[in-house]
């Protein structure tokens, strides 16, 4: 292995960083080295290629070829623009945080439903607050060496959100982070979210990403969760970007003793999209569930890449990812379960199922178990296939027409994932969202079966 890494001569990211350094005079002193470390990590590896094991199924050449510009200044969002976006919880009572191209939109956000003792402020404000000591927390739980997009986020993030839920506080009202991309060509957004759930606290966090127009943009948010002992976080991330766009998200969670971290993913948009998820199970007796559904058609590529790091004994982790792929879409799943030597009595389960609705759709799945403890239960399974002819026949003998039978089975396949969402209102609304999206698939009603 040679240490020299080729950066293309006119790397737009390096140029953009120079511009940022000139503009960014008022930052707290720790932030400049923080950004530089992110950029250095990016410079060390550049953007990944298919030769990188972690990216071997995901060709990001279209991203490499575009000279993206980070969105350094906040744009202004008209309230009316929100109405056109089919995000769930329309009728819900969620506290709402709105972002445009990575920048917090205070006017359109509504925090009044959150309890007073929650610390909630924009990331721009949070980094300036010395008492929050973000210099010691931000980036503490991220890993950049295998994820240049998280490195770029560290280098370029301008805003986002900071949330600290105090000990024992159980928040019934869901918190909805709505991220909108203007959708201008070559625009890049790097929102940064930091969420800490104190001991015995509880919260539901919905994060959804939408586009205001169908341009070729990049959205690369990074979210860090710190889930303290016996806290309970349910996180639901919806990705509904432009079909031309690139969505490269990073989610990191550091989970404490007897805590619950349930993180759900619904991926629908983007030409190339990827969730890079890494959870560190850092206390005994906790439960971590990563549960995802990806729907892709046309020439979309939808990738979910996760590392679950069992660092303490007696933890349960489950990863369930189902993909429904039509036309020439590609699904990629890479699930690595790492069981450290100390992590005895680990119970880790992983499944990835892919339903191909057309003959041109493809799925790549790569389970990876890395186990250093000797008393553990780890299982994984993957399937790639078409609808079950036997089930269709059975339904038809009961008078259910073929097209309806097929829809029932596709819906059921998606339902396996959606049903794991605990929050009832969100679950029901997402069921509708999924159904609406599937109805746009060319082969939803006329599935080719073997």
């Amino acid at each position, binding site marked *: 292995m040679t240490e020299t890494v080729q950066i293309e001569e006119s790397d737009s990211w390096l140029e953009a960083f120079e511009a940022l350094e000139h503009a960014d005079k008022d930052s707290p002193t720790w932030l400049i080295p923080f950004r530089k470390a992110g950029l250095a990590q990016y410079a060390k590896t550049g953007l990944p290629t298919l030769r990188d094991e972690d990216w071997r199924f995901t060709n990001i050449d279209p991203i490499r070829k575009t000279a993206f510009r980070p969105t350094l200044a906040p744009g202004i969002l008209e309230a009316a623009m929100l109405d056109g976006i089919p995000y769930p919880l329309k009728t819900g009572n969620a506290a709402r945080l709105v972002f445009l191209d990575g920048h917090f939109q205070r006017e359109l956000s509504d925090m009044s439903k959150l309890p007073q003792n929650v610390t909630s402020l924009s990331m721009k404000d949070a980094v300036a607050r010395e008492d929050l000591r973000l210099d010691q927390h931000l980036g503490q739980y991220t890993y950049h060496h295998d994820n240049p997009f998280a490195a770029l986020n560290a280098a370029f993030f301008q805003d986002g959100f900071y949330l600290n839920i105090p000990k024992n506080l159980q928040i019934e009202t869901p918190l909805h982070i709505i991220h909108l991309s203007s959708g201008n060509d070559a625009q890049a957004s790097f929102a940064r979210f930091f969420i800490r759930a104190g001991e015995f606290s509880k919260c539901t966090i919905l994060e959804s990403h939408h586009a205001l127009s169908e341009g070729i943009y990049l959205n690369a948010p990074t979210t860090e969760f710190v889930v303290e002992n016996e806290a309970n976080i349910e996180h639901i991330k919806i990705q509904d970007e432009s079909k031309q766009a690139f969505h490269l998200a990073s989610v990191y969670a550091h989970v404490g003793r007897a805590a619950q971290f349930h993180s759900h993913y619904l991926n629908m948009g983007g030409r190339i999209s990827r969730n890079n998820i890494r959870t560190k199970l850092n206390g005994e007796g906790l439960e971590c569930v990563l549960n995802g559904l990806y729907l892709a058609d046309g020439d979309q590529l939808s990738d979910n890449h996760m590392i679950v790091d069992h660092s303490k004994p007696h933890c349960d982790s489950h990863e369930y990812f189902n993909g429904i792929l039509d036309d020439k879409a590609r699904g990629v799943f890479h699930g690595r379960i790492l069981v450290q030597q100390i992590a005895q009595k680990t119970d880790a389960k992983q499944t990835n199922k892919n339903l191909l609705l057309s003959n041109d759709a493809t799925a790549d799945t790569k389970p990876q178990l890395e186990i250093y403890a000797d008393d553990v239960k780890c299982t994984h399974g993957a399937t790639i296939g078409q609808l079950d002819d*036997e089930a269709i026949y059975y339904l*038809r*003998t009961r*008078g259910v027409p073929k097209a309806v039978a097929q829809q*029932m089975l596709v819906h059921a396949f998606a339902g396996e994932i959606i049903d794991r969402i605990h929050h009832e209102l969100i679950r029901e609304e997402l069921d509708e969202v999924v159904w609406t999206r599937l109805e746009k698939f060319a082969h939803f009603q006329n599935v080719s079966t073997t």
Partner: protein
Amino acid sequence: MSNKSLLRINNLQAGVEGRTILKGINLEINAGEVHAIMGPNGSGKSTLASVIAGREGYEILGGEIEFRGEDLMDMEADERAHLGLFLAFQYPVEIPGVNTTYFLKSAINETRKARGEKELDAVEFLKFIKSKAKLLDLPEDFLKRSLNVGFSGGEKKRNEIFQMAALEPVMAVLDETDSGLDIDALKVVANGVNQLRGPESAQLVITHYQRLLDYIVPDVVHVLHDGRIIKTGPKELAHELEDKGYDWVIKEAEQPA
């Protein structure tokens, strides 16, 4: 008993993957009748049930099947169901994620729609379905569960009969419904089938053993062997087969007439 013909099978030949399994079946079932088809393993019993129900993948090599005066050959399985045909599966399929209530509502309303009847609304449907569920002694929550998922063998068979009761077919074909049932479950299943008996409907009971026929008493018994019906007789034929096995019938059939 009326003599209205419901099912008429004429010289039916069918096979799968180039292998001929049914070699000329003739069978006529009238309204009000219960027929039993018995036969050793591999005689073609399940193939016959599948071909009647419209399973894809079978090659029809010759002959006709008429149901209620209509040619079944060009009809899809769901169209046959709409016409009043029902097949109780030997191995009911587990379908994860498809809720039993949701499925049944769709099945019943699609059938009603095809027959030009008004669809049931949610309240009418639930009332209707609960009255049917009582008959079959099914686990209380089964309507909320995924179709057949986690059901025991006996529960699956009872669910078949429950669906049959709900769909109220003109003719039901029961493909080895007795296999895997203990005597109590067998009685429940038979009771469900007997409730469907009437002057306008018919049942075709396919079984390897005579046991089920103690509870669903047939009017006519046929013996299927090597793709042909080799003997037809009254209900006592079933007892004879139970006592003496199939060999004597096969020998008798092989003797030149």
